[in-house]
């Protein structure tokens, strides 16, 4: 795009001129739709002809060997990575491939990263505050005040993630597991239509896992959830439909039982002992 034409796009400079994103349209079927997506890095195909459909309100688990392309898939959905070919739709209205990360996020796609990334210089409270679903344009952000309602919401989430005591500590000092929880909290604050959760229970104890499982299942229905996880116990406890990725494409899809008995899945992923 030439510089000139961008300069004439005044609305791209001043966000108060930007039209607000229109809501996601799910009347005609799935909320997320990936078709024939391929992405390669220096010739290595991390995603190879991937097709995936997530229905509105669904909770989907995705498993697959290390390097199968699960995280890369999330990168594609959230606009971090552009596929070489293929199409990705959010509802039937939004072509995600034409949008950038903040646009996609404001459409209502939230993500928890595999490696927890929080704002280390900000407090736990502020991390949650920033994640909160509100008007995120510049001037509204500048003039934003915290309403009682919003504060209550933050408090609620703080309780859920068990960090109430640490709310005014900088997020940088949290332990690994605490950061995982904070990320989940930020995801909750965003109230997205679609949650992409990459390895939520890594580093959690069995009991914490149970809590997480409860949390995610309670979200499903209102929101759509995609969970990537290697802990089979956890997956079993929440899964309705499981998709197995392998070498960048779908290897198997079905109920947990179907999948875990699939010899191909056992061979490349579960191993005999599991």
């Amino acid at each position, binding site marked *: 795009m030439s510089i000139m034409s961008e300069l004439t796009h005044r609305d791209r400079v001043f966000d108060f001129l930007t039209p607000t994103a229109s809501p996601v349209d799910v009347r005609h079927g799935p909320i997320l739709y990936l078709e024939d997506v391929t992405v390669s890095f220096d010739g290595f195909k991390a995603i190879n002809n991937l097709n995936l459909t997530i229905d509105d309100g669904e909770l989907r688990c995705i498993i697959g060997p*290390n390097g199968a392309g699960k995280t890369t898939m999330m990168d594609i959905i959230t606009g971090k990575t552009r596929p070489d070919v293929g199409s990705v739709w959010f509802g039937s209205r939004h072509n995600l491939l034409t949008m950038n990360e903040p646009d996609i996020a404001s459409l209502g796609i939230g993500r928890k990263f595999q490696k927890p990334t929080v704002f280390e210089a900000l407090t736990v409270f502020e991390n949650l505050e920033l994640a909160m679903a509100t008007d995120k344009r510049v001037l509204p952000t500048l003039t934003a005040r915290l309403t009682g309602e919003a504060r209550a919401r933050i408090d609620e989430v703080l309780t859920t993630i068990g960090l109430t005591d640490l709310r005014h500590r900088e997020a940088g000092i949290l332990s690994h597991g605490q950061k995982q929880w904070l990320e989940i909290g930020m995801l909750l604050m965003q109230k997205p239509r679609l949650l992409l959760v990459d390895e939520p229970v*890594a580093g959690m*104890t069995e009991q914490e896992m149970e809590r997480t499982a409860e949390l995610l299942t309670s979200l499903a229905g209102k929101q759509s959830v995609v969970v990537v996880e290697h802990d089979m116990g956890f997956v079993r406890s929440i899964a309705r439909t499981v998709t197995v990725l392998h070498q960048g494409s779908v290897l198997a899809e079905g109920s947990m039982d179907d999948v875990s008995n699939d010899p191909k899945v056992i061979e490349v992923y579960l191993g005999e002992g599991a």
Partner: protein
Amino acid sequence: MLKIEKLNQFYGESHTLWDLDLDVPQGQCTCVMGRNGVGKTTLMKCVMGEESVKDGSILFAGDVELTQRKIEDRSRLGIGYVPQGRQVFPLLTVEENLRTGLAVRQDGSKTIPERVYELFPVLREMKNRRGGDLSGGQQQQLAIGRALVIEPRLLILDEPGEGIQPNIVAQIGEVIRKLIEEDGLTVLLVEQKLPFARKYADRFAIMDRGRRVAEGEIAELSDALIKQHLTV
């Protein structure tokens, strides 16, 4: 192999480890457990020297007082470390990541032991890819592989199974056992997942808010203990 006594550690003003005692017997796998944020990682860092301790002692191999040693000397003594969060060198290739461990090998070998590649074939496959480009699980495998390159006497594993696919997790467990049995390796393991701990560890220690609250043979790890210290 490792004997920790009355260890106290502070992050600035906050007292994180309290009078902590821990015994890691030679040729066994000791598993440290505890809820999030109780100080497991902190303890490992103290052993490695990445955090300084206020007082207390950490004796290695009977008579080496670790708290007096610089970090780099500790690995020279034969301690391998797989930290939580992988900590691979993102811009070094996989092979270069592994080669960083060659400096301290006792035998002065300049090649990466074949065993590492056998255990994690993906590392061979991706030899020339940058560490940071790997998937999460691949990075974790790289971190473990890297620690094995130095052929340690004591291996510290901070939640090693995190993000690794189930069959490889099992394989890692097997390797640990094999090293313990064949080479007399000592392992200090932090692990949350009970099945794994039960299957591969010899001993356990439970931490709660910076203190060691329980310790014993893995068989002694009772549901009561778990309920008391590991549930929220």
